């Protein structure tokens, strides 16, 4: 939409024009089913395999280690349920963290009913998992560790290399949810030492409807969607060819431009954080001050609530997000913020501005201009705020 300042890139991203163009033929011209023997099927299959190479290359994997799925949630469900099934001989304990995405946490709850115990590691005030805590949590029967790479809310990037080494030293399979990181920061699954890694197209300027699970060659995992022999029998269902083509292009472009984009975003981000701190008092920056996603500006405005901030920003044409319970469908405060030790009141006043490569400096300036009066207006209404 013209004129909208989209600072909600953590929820999804605009599709890059080049990506959309690459997808276009696959709807009304190259519409074949990759399973078909004929030329239209073959060209669809070639397109899917081409994408697989791009997607693999983005994270330093081999093409045959990539399985396409429909969304990040499916990749995470596939990994946890699929690995749990193949690992149950190894033990029945999983270690994860308290700031994981709900598509990790809910499967863990379900697995509990099937006899799997789990430990959720705490995080410090910046949202970091400590390798020491991980070491201590490992039990004789720990079969799987699942720790996200970057947090989608506060942007904190975990030290996966250290965590992965601990997993390896203890011969425990290691999954990481990379939905918020892949395509945004450099990812090399071999260096990170992960056995399985989820990521999705719609977070890197690709289309919705395509995501992937990296599964290290040789790792046993049961399929989750079952039926036909697509994806070498590990994910049944007709491939979403156009979306996969888009994902491939998005991955190709991301690999190429990642360094440039990250530097640009860090500049914007730092300017925005400084601008907010300078213009408004009683604001707290959430997440790690350095080890954070380049586009992440997550702040809490004391004394007021996030939904009302978002609504007023929206009136000014600015799109953002919040960890307030009033914004969540589940009517709960962001678990991430609470785990980091924020008080519920402070968590209520949180706003996530997630910047993307299409954002312009002027958009940040405009936001910095309209934000103080919005905060001021709401604080004036708040029973918690005493004007000084």
């Amino acid at each position, binding site marked *: 939409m013209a004129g909208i300042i989209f600072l909600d890139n953590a929820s999804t991203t605009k599709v890059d024009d080049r990506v959309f163009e690459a997808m276009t033929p696959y709807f009304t011209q190259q519409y074949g089913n990759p399973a078909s023997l004929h030329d239209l099927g073959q060209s669809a299959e070639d397109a899917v395999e081409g994408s697989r190479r791009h997607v693999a290359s983005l994270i330093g994997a081999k093409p045959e280690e990539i399985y396409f799925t429909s969304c990040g949630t499916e990749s995470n469900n596939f990994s946890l349920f699929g690995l749990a099934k193949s690992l149950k001989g190894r033990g029945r304990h999983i270690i994860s963290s308290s700031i994981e995405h709900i598509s990790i946490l809910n499967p863990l709850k379900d697995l509990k009913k099937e006899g799997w115990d789990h430990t959720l590691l705490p995080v410090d005030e910046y949202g970091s998992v400590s390798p020491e805590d991980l070491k201590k949590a490992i039990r004789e029967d720990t079969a799987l560790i699942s720790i996200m790479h970057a947090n989608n809310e506060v942007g904190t990037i975990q030290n996966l290399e250290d965590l992965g080494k601990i997993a390896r030293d203890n011969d425990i399979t290691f999954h990481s949810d990379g939905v918020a990181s892949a395509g945004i920061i450099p990812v090399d699954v071999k260096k990170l030492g992960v056995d399985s890694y989820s990521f999705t197209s719609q977070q890197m300027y690709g289309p919705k409807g395509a995501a992937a699970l990296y599964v290290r060659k040789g790792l046993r995992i049961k399929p989750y969607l079952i039926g036909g022999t697509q994806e070498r029998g590990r994910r049944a269902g007709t491939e979403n060819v156009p979306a996969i083509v888009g994902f491939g292009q998005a991955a190709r472009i991301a690999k190429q431009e990642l360094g440039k984009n990250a530097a640009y975003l860090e500049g914007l981000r730092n300017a925005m954080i400084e601008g907010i701190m300078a213009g408004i008092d009683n604001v707290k920056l959430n997440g790690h001050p350095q080890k954070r996603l380049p586009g992440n500006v997550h702040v809490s405005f004391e*004394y007021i*609530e996030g*939904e009302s901030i978002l609504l007023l920003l929206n009136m000014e044409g600015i799109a953002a997000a919040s960890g307030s*319970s009033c914004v969540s*469908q589940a*009517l709960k405060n962001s678990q991430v913020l609470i785990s980091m030790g924020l008080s519920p009141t402070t968590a209520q006043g949180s706003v996530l501005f997630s910047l993307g490569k299409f954002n312009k400096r002027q958009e940040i300036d405009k936001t910095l201009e309209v934000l103080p009066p919005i905060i001021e207006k709401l604080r004036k209404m708040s*029973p*918690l705020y005493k004007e000084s």
Partner: protein
Amino acid sequence: MVTYSKKVMDHFMSPKNVGEIEDADGVGEVGNPTCGDMMTFYIKVKDDRLDDVKFKTFGCGAAIAVSSMVSELAMGKSLDEALKISNKDVAHELGGLPKQKMHCSNLGADALHKAIQDYKKKKME
């Protein structure tokens, strides 16, 4: 996601009667920030009528709109009439509220009633 009626958005954008009354005759508070919304109502009473109503609200768009609507509905009413204003009435006057907003955010009438009870209690003392 949440979609608010035009009336809710109007009240949210330009809420009526925001503020405190320094020497209020009654004060009522409901909710708490932990659960999401918190409202404080202040009233001035004259001849058993609400001579002034003001509020302060911490909360979502619905909570602010509800507070504003309650203050408007109550203003000038007799205490008995004001006590008859229900949360349901308020939602109705606002052209409806999203389902998930009915529990936490639609507490304005309760806060008003509490303020009236506070006034009555103080008068008794």
